[in-house]
Structures are given as structure tokens and as C-alpha cells.
């Protein structure tokens, strides 16, 4: 029997077939469930459920609520697998299993013991973007970087692994990617000089399988100098360390706190890397590869197939970590496998996800001004690079100079809050920021475990616009155009959901859950939840009824930056305080609100 089992597992491995991902894909394919944070491997955040549709959504009502017991920024969303809903919290990262067949009774809860010192090294709130389900287990990645596999039925710990060292500023806020026989995880700490990486653990045992850094020597960043390409050309040897001065790469950032998507046919997973550290560009001459980069890596080996650095030598903190949404769409009569990425730098990229070819790169907010655009000429020496406008270059203006009027701000035109894609409308629905900034870099010293920032920022709503700090937009990724745009008073910091009912949902920082028409953007429904929303909308079905779930709980970067309201120093002293303060609209909270149509 032992022999047989060993043989069978070897056979399974050799065939690359009977892995966890096969069963997980089957669970993902059931529209009544929401089993991983991104909805599916493509990160489309699209549901085939259509009971709640553009004709019925106006009748939506609150079905039930649940308090998480934590008053911090609540990012991510609950999961639903079978009869169980899994709800996570920010630090201390409690996980609840709620029995949906028994009126939401708490089946089990898991409360990890973490040293609260980690709170002090989490830049921008103790947010956590949620657990993932696979193979009868729930995967939690704690703030202190402990990865835990919990038995989905009992909440018992199956295994745990430690991914980083909080005393060096290594923390976690991201969800994990369960794929094939692995759990792939990232790391936070770009403001602490962490050398970012992604790491694969065996889904059954928690054994570390490989670790691929974002910056460093070729063996550490797991590239093949001859075969790994950028825009069709091999990257060559020492591509990363050649783009740094001295040993700065060792504290070079490129952290991996965003989302993962995967294409099982191509055996690739996709993610983006964060800012190079420090924020003072003068302290790190060179392109700082491969920070600010889209990576396509082999799921089994971890080796990069292709890379694309969007913002070489970042001067504005435009982390490249936002989600990579995968879609199959027709371009010039040919169906292509695409990757669409709405970057913090204000450019929406459409790429061929198999080859890494750049197809579209256009601004998705007209106020973006740090670049005139991306060079799309393959014959050009600067092919694929953004042309930087000198006036807004914090590098060219130099240390101790305040560069003013840069759009977008360091929040990005969009941060991690994920967009959605509806295959029915072939449209991307994108929550955005409409905020600009002044940025003054200066010299800083590195101390392990201490913030390593090196710039002073002031942020304010985009001038000469609608006065608000956000937009919710519909994006055409083939033509690189905005279809429609809904102005919002505050940044939209909530992940969107698109459904087969042709309704798109998102939350606002004031606390509204909103539903809009997928074609026109017309508002169809709104409800004010107890606290500001920075979570992501999800949906599920039970006993023939469709539900919409959203976490409230203001916080994150938005809660820090916008609580007191923004001011524009360039407006002169008299105008100070002229912008809305989030604290006038909402207070701390931590609640799940679930909606349904009346019986």
C-alpha cells in the first residue's frame, strides 16, 4: 500500500496533473462559491451569478451582519466554500469560520499569537487582504509573516512556516496564491529597505521549495540570462545588480505585497514588484531592476519567463504591485491571451501574457503628468520606457528640492484595491485615486528594522478637476480609453465586483456600497455601511439566493492620508482646510454586511 501510494504520487507529479489546483479550479468554477480572494486565477473578480441584476439590484436589502471585533482597516473579503464562510481580520489576524447552514454560528475561530511589535513596523496600518482556500485547508499569512495552513473543518493547524523577519521590517499584508502543489507568498516592507521576494511552499507540508528575489544576482532573482526576456529580448547576465550602484540592491525594496494571478495552461504566475528603496532617487542611481516590474514566472521552478519594468528608476513611489487581470480578447481579428494591469504610475498596460509583448500603454486618468507616455516603437532605444517630464522629475530637480504638482501622488492613480473585468462587456472596472502631490527627496541613513523613506510628501486633490479625490472608471484595455468615469469625493479604496447581472459593485471611503450599471455607470443602488470601505466586494449563492458581501472598517493608507482631509500648500494659506476630511464622514469599525434581494 505504501509503495502504491508513493508510486501514485510520483505519477501524479510526473503528469503534472492531479494537483490541488485541479480540485481548486473545480471549486473556483462553482459560481455559488468565492474560494480565493481574487475570485479566480485570472483575478477577474467576475461572477456568473445574475439573480441580482440591473433590474433587481435596486431592491437589495441587508440580510445579515457580523462584527469582526477588530477596529482597523479591513481589506480583502470573506470567502465562501460549501456551507462555510471564512472571515479574516487585520492584526491580530483572527480567522472565523461561520456556518451558513446554522445562521452564521461560529464553527471555529483561530487567533494567532503574534508579537505586537510587528504593528510598529507595518507601514500604513495593519491591513490584511485575506485568507485563501485550497485542498480542505484555509491559508493564513499573518502580519508577522508566519504562513499557517488551517484545517477548514476544525481550524486546527496543519502546518506553519516563517517567511520573514519583522525585526528587519519584513511583514505581510497580502493574500497567498494556492496553485498546483504550492502556496506562493509575497512580502511587505519596501519602506524598511527589505529585499523583496516571492516564495513557494509545499501545499501539503509547508516545506520551502524556492525563493525568487526581485533585486539581486541572477541566482537570487531566478532568471535565465539567455531565456528570460524583456519585451522580446534576453535580459542578459547580472541584469539587476548592473542597474544599481554598489550594494544598494541589498536594501533595494521591490517588495511583493500585491496580488497574484496564474495561467495554468502556460504554467505561469504573474505579479508586480514594489518601489526601490529609498524614496530618494539620488541615493540609488540606475534603473533599479527589477523593482516596479511585472514578472511572469514558472509555477514549478520559479524561474522568470519574462519581465517588464514599467517605471525604471522610480522617483515617485509608484509601486508596481497592482493586480494583473488575465483575459482572452480579440485584437485585430486574433484572440490573444492578455494581461491588463492598471499601474500606480497612472498607466494602464495591456500585454500578451504568453510572450510579454507590450500592446497598449495609455494613461487612465487624464491628469497624469509625470510622463508624456510610453515609447511604443520596437526599433527605438527607449522602447517600453516612459518619457519623464523634467519639471516633475524628483531626480532631475535634485535632493532638497520640492517638486510640485506631480500627478498622480504616491498613492498612485490606483493602489492595490483590485479592479474587475466583465467578459460580457469586455470592460475593466477600476477604482482610482485622483490625487496629486509635492515630493521633496532628501538623504537618509539605513538602520535595519527602521523606516527608510527619504522624502517629504504633500498630497491634494487633482487641481482643476471635480475637486474629489477619486474616480470609478470603466476602461477599454484594447483601445486604451476610459469609457465612463464616476467622480467620487474620496479615493475609491475598495475592490470591485462585476457580475453576469451586468451590475458592478464597489465601496467608498464614506462607507457606501454602490451598485452601478455595467454598460452606462448609472448608479442603481447605494447603502451606507457602519464604517468606510477599503474591502473588496464578493458574491455567493445559497439555497437559490444570491448574496453580496462587503467588509467595512476604514483604515489603510486612505485612513492615514485622508482622515484629516487634504490641503494644497500651493493654494496659499487661505485655502488650507478646503477639502473634505474623511473623519467627518466615518469612524473606525470592523463589520461584514451581507445583502440579498427580498423573498
Amino acid at each position, binding site marked *: 500500500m505504501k509503495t502504491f501510494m508513493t508510486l501514485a504520487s510520483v505519477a501524479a507529479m510526473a503528469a503534472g496533473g492531479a494537483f490541488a489546483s485541479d480540485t481548486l479550479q473545480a471549486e473556483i468554477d462553482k459560481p455559488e462559491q468565492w474560494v480565493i480572494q481574487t475570485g479566480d486565477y485570472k483575478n477577474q473578480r467576475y461572477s456568473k451569478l445574475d439573480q441580482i441584476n440591473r433590474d433587481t439590484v435596486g431592491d437589495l436589502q441587508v440580510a445579515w451582519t457580523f462584527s469582526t471585533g477588530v477596529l482597523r482597516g479591513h481589506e480583502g473579503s470573506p470567502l465562501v466554500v460549501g456551507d462555510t464562510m471564512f472571515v479574516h481580520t487585520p492584526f491580530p489576524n483572527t480567522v472565523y469560520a461561520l456556518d451558513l447552514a446554522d445562521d452564521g454560528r461560529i464553527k471555529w475561530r483561530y487567533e494567532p499569537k503574534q508579537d*505586537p511589535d510587528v504593528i*510598529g513596523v507595518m507601514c500604513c496600518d495593519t491591513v490584511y487582504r485575506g485568507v485563501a482556500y485550497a485542498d480542505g485547508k484555509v491559508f493564513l499569512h499573518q502580519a508577522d509573516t508566519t504562513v499557517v495552513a488551517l484545517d477548514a473543518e476544525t481550524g486546527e493547524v496543519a502546518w506553519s512556516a516563517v517567511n520573514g523577519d519583522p525585526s528587519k521590517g519584513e511583514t505581510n499584508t497580502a493574500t497567498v496564491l494556492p496553485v498546483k502543489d504550492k502556496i506562493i507568498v509575497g512580502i511587505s516592507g519596501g519602506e524598511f529597505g527589505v529585499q523583496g521576494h516571492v516564495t513557494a511552499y509545499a501545499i501539503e507540508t509547508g516545506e520551502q521549495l524556492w525563493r525568487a528575489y526581485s533585486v539581486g544576482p541572477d541566482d537570487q532573482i531566478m532568471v535565465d540570462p539567455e531565456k528570460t526576456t524583456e519585451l522580446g529580448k534576453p535580459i542578459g547576465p547580472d541584469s539587476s545588480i548592473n542597474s544599481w550602484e554598489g550594494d544598494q540592491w541589498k536594501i533595494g525594496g521591490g517588495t511583493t505585497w500585491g496580488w497574484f494571478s496564474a495561467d495554468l495552461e502556460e504554467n505561469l504566475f504573474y505579479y508586480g514588484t514594489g518601489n526601490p528603496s529609498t524614496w530618494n532617487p539620488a541615493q540609488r542611481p540606475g534603473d533599479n531592476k527589477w523593482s516596479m516590474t511585472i514578472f511572469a514566472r514558472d509555477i514549478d521552478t520559479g524561474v522568470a519567463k519574462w519581465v517588464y519594468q514599467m517605471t525604471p528608476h522610480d522617483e515617485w513611489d509608484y509601486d508596481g504591485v497592482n493586480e494583473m487581470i488575465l483575459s482572452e480578447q480579440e485584437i485585430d481579428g486574433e484572440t490573444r491571451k492578455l494581461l491588463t494591469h492598471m499601474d500606480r504610475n497612472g498607466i494602464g498596460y495591456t500585454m500578451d501574457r504568453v510572450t510579454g509583448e507590450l500592446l497598449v500603454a495609455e494613461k487612465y486618468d487624464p491628469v497624469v503628468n509625470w510622463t508624456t507616455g510610453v515609447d511604443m516603437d520596437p526599433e527605438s532605444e527607449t522602447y517600453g520606457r516612459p518619457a519623464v517630464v523634467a519639471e516633475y522629475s524628483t531626480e532631475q530637480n535634485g535632493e532638497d528640492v520640492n517638486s510640485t504638482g506631480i500627478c498622480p501622488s504616491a498613492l498612485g492613480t490606483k493602489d492595490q484595491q483590485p479592479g474587475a473585468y466583465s467578459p460580457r462587456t469586455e470592460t475593466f472596472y477600476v477604482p482610482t485615486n485622483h490625487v496629486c502631490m509635492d515630493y521633496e527627496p532628501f538623504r537618509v541613513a539605513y538602520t535595519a528594522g527602521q523606516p527608510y523613506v527619504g522624502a517629504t510628501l504633500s498630497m491634494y486633490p487633482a487641481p482643476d478637476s471635480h475637486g474629489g479625490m477619486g474616480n470609478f472608471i470603466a476602461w477599454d484595455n484594447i483601445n486604451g480609453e476610459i469609457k465612463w468615469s464616476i467622480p467620487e469625493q474620496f479615493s475609491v479604496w475598495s475592490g470591485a465586483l462585476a457580475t453576469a447581472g451586468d451590475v458592478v459593485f464597489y465601496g467608498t471611503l464614506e462607507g457606501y456600497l454602490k451598485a452601478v450599471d455595467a454598460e452606462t455607470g448609472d448608479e442603481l443602488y447605494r447603502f451606507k455601511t457602519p464604517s468606510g470601505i477599503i474591502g473588496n466586494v464578493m458574491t455567493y449563492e445559497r439555497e437559490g439566493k444570491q448574496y453580496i458581501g462587503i467588509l467595512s472598517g476604514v483604515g489603510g493608507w486612505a485612513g492615514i492620508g485622508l482622515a484629516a482631509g487634504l490641503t494644497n500648500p500651493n493654494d496659499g494659506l487661505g485655502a488650507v482646510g478646503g477639502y473634505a476630511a474623511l473623519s467627518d464622514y466615518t469612524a473606525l469599525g470592523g463589520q461584514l454586511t451581507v445583502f440579498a434581494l427580498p423573498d
Partner: protein
Amino acid sequence: MKFTASLLAAGLAAAGMAGQATAQDVDNLSVAYEEGGRYYTEDDVPTYNIGEDGTVDWLTYSGFRRYHSECHVCHGPEGEGSSYAPALKTSAIDMDYYDFLDVVTNGRKVVNAASHNVMPAFGDNPNVMCYIDDIYVYLKARGADVLPRGRPGQREDKSDDIRAAEEACLGL
């Protein structure tokens, strides 16, 4: 000196600010003397110096920059506080200078069922500790409501003494 203090107190009361400043017997705000471009109270505590035309002393200006590099990501812009951490412009007024230094140096934890507040220890961070007086006087000026939000406009130049102390502290 006493005369100036009373005037200031009267000004604060008139501006409806009396409730914000704690009822301290000592005047923790007014300048008693200047030394190498730094300003001090009667009790030798660093303080801001803001001229009638709004010109700020170097430390207040520098504090604006350092605050928005080191503190802003948790405590929000201009000492106003956030959903995550308290308003330091208030702390700089309410707390004794030496207590303020102690919390920045050694950190502080308030962790219980209702609260998970952890201020890290910055004692070995030169980007904070070499500029702690700068950050303190900036926040005190904000808390006393004598410095509006936004980037200070006119400022005094950096004195040779301040430059020398900075270089020594950073080990340059």
C-alpha cells in the same frame, strides 16, 4: 518674559484654543532665548520661533520635512492624526518634552482587547533621532495653532551650529 507669556495665553484664549493647551503652570511655548539658530523656553526646552510675517525658524521647517518622511505614514499629514495613530500635534502640547523624547526613543504599547497601538522605538534611527527637536518644535507649533497646515513658506537659514550638529549626529 512673563509679559509675553500672558499675552500669548490671552491670544490663545481669544482664538478659542485654551482647551487644547493643557493647564500647565510653566509656559512651554514662548521663546526665552536663542542659541545658534535654536530657540528655547525659559526651562531650556526647545520651541519654535515664528515671526510676525510667518517666517519660521530652521528647526520648525526641518521638522515639517522630517515629520512627513518618518511620522506621516502612521500619524497622518501635518500631525493631524489618522485612523491608525493619534494626532501628534496634540501630543506635543500635552506631553512634557522629556516624556515625548522617551516615547520616540523607546516606543510605547497599548495592546488590549480594544486597542492595538504600538509606537515603535526609534532610538537607533538617525533619521529620527538626529532631528527629534526639529520634529518636536514643528509639532508644537502645529498644536499651538500658530503654524497652519501645509509647507511653511519663509524660513530662517540653517545655522552653522545646526549644520555641524547634524553632521556630527549622522556621522558624516
